[in-house]
C-alpha cells in the first residue's frame, strides 16, 4: 500500500521529480566530462531542469494561459514563473554563447578542447 501511495505522489509531482533527475544528470555531465563542449551541454541541461522546475510551480492542472475574455471563466495558470523564466532563458543563452566563444579561444591557444589535456599543457609550462 505504502508503495502505491508513494508512486501516486511521485505521479502527482512528476514535474518536480523529473526536473531533479535532469538536474542531477546535467550536474554529473558538467563535473565528470573532460570535453569542454560536453561540460557546456551539461550546464544547459542543468539550467533547463531548473527552468522546468520553476515553470512547473506556476502550473495548475487543467489551467490555460491567463488571457482574459469577457464572459468566459477558466482556471488559469500562474503566469509569473513563466515570465521570469523567459528572462532566465535569455541569461542562459548569453552564458552559453560566451562559454562557447571561450572554448573557441581555448582551442586556438591549446589545440584541444579536452580539459585534462589543457591541464597537462599548463602543468608543463610552470615547470
Amino acid at each position, binding site marked *: 500500500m505504502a508503495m502505491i501511495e508513494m508512486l501516486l505522489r511521485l505521479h502527482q509531482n512528476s514535474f518536480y521529480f523529473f526536473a531533479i533527475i535532469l538536474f542531477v544528470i546535467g550536474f554529473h555531465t*558538467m563535473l565528470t566530462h573532460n570535453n569542454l563542449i560536453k561540460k557546456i551541454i551539461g*550546464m544547459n541541461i542543468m*539550467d533547463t531542469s531548473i527552468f522546468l*522546475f520553476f515553470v512547473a510551480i506556476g502550473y495548475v492542472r487543467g489551467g490555460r494561459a491567463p488571457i482574459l475574455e469577457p464572459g468566459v471563466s477558466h482556471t488559469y495558470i500562474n503566469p509569473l514563473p513563466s515570465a521570469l523564466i523567459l528572462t532566465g532563458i535569455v541569461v542562459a543563452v548569453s*552564458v552559453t554563447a*560566451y*562559454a562557447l566563444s*571561450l572554448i573557441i*579561444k*581555448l582551442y586556438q591557444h591549446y589545440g584541444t578542447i579536452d580539459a585534462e589535456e589543457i591541464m597537462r599543457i599548463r602543468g608543463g609550462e610552470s615547470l
Partner: protein
Amino acid sequence: MSSTHLPVLVVVVPLFFAYLMPLFARWRKKWCLPVTLGAITFSLFSSLYMAQQVMASGPFHYRMGDWPPPWGIEFYIDHLAVFMGITLTGVGLLIIIYGSKDLLHEIKESLMGWYYTLYLLLMASMLGMAFTNDFFNLFVFIEICAIASCAIISIKDKRECIEAAFKYLVLSAVGSGCILLAIAMVYMITGHLNFNFVAEGLQTAMSVYPKNILVALALLMVGLGVKAALFPLHVWLPDAHSSAPSPSSAVLSGLVIKIYAVAMIKLLYRVFPADFVGMIPVMNMLLWMATFAIIVGSMFAIVQEDIKKMLAYSSIAQIGYVFLGVGLMSQNGLIGGILHIINHAMMKSMLFLAAGAFIYATGVRKLSDLKGIGHTMPVAATAFTIGSMAMVGIPATNGFISKWYLALGTLDANKPLFAAVILVSSLLNGVYYLPIIVNAFFAKPEGRVAEPERLPVQMTVPLVVLGFGCLFFGVFPSRLVELVTRAAQVLRGF
C-alpha cells in the same frame, strides 16, 4: 530630476553608459574615459547623498514604476546598501583611473572601449545587488555580474586568462543554477519574490514545509559561497585573480567577491526566519568554513612565488574574516565583518594596483626578484607596505579596526577560540607580507628592478589616495563605524 529617483539612477546611469560606450569608442575615442568616470562619480555622489538621507531619517523603499511591492520590483535602501554603494563606487572609481593607463600595457588598444563597457556593467550589477529587495532581480544582477567579471579576465587574450575565465564561468554557472533553484524553492512555498513578503511568508511556512526552506538555504549557501570563494569552493579564484589584468584583479578581489557576501548577509539576516537559522547550525558551519578559509588561504599564500597569486590566496583568507563576522551573530562581530568589506576592498585593491605597478614598470612578477624595488619605485612600494601593514592589522591602519571589532565579537559571542584564529592568521599574514617589504627596502636593486619605467600620474594618484585612505580610516574610523554600527543594528532588527 528630483532626488526621489536616486536609488534607481545609481544603477541605471552606469548601465546606460555601459551600452553607449562601444559607440563612443567608435566615434569619440577620447570621451570614453571621462564618461566612465562621470558615470561612476555620479553613483558615488548619489550614494553619499543617500547615506546622509538614511542616516538622518532611516531606511526607505523605492518602487520601480510606482507599482506597490507584491507586484513591482523594489529597492530597499538601508545602511548596508548605501555603505556598499559608497565602497563600490569609491574604490571602483580609483581602480578605473589607474586602469586607464595600466590596461594599455595589457590589452589591445582597440579593446579599451569594451573594457569600459564591461567595467560599467560590473559596477551597475554590483550596485543593483546591494540595493535590490527582490529575489529575481538579485538573480539577474548576479548573472550580469558573473558574465562581466569573467569577461574582464578573458579580455586579455592570453591562454592562461582564457582558461581561468572559463573555469570561473563554469563554476559560477553552477552557483547561479543553485541560486535560481533556491529561489524556486522559496517561491514555491511563499508565492512571493520580494524579500519582506518572503520573510513574512517563511514565518508561517516554516512549520509546514521545513524541508523546502532547508534545501533553499543550502542551495543559497553553495551558490553564493562559490561566487564569494568561501573556502572549499574557492578553487577558481587563484588562477582567475592572478592572471587577469591588474585593474581587473583589483576589482575582482576587492569588490566582486564581497558583494556576494553582502547578498548572503541580507538573506540570512533579513529573509530567513531567525528561529529557523537558530535551529540549523548554519552560522556554525559558516564560522568553521571561514576559519578554514582564513588558515588555509594564508598557508597557501606563504608558498607562492608569484606576487599576484600570493595576493589572490590572501583574498581567500580575507573573505573568511567577512564570513566569520557574519557567522558570529553578535553585534560587534557583524560590525567587524561589514567593516572588513570596505577595509579589505581598499587594501587589497591597493596591493593589486601596487603589484600591477611593479609589473608595469619592471615586468617582474616573481617575489624573489623584487629586491630593492623600494629604492627605485618608492610610491608603489610604500603603498604596498601600507597595504601589507593593514593586512597584518597593525594599529593605525584600517585592518586593525575591523580585526578589533571581530575579536570583540568573538568574545561577546563567547567563542574565544575564534579570537585565537584571528591572532594566528595575523601572524601568518606577517609571515608572507613582511619579507617582501624587507626585501623591497633593505636590498640592492638589480637587473630590471634597478631601472623601472616611469609610472604615469594616473597610476600613482589612486595608489596615494588608497594608501591615505587606509591610514585615515585607521586613525579616524568614527564616521565609518557609526554607519556600519547602524547597518548592523538595522540588520539585527533593533
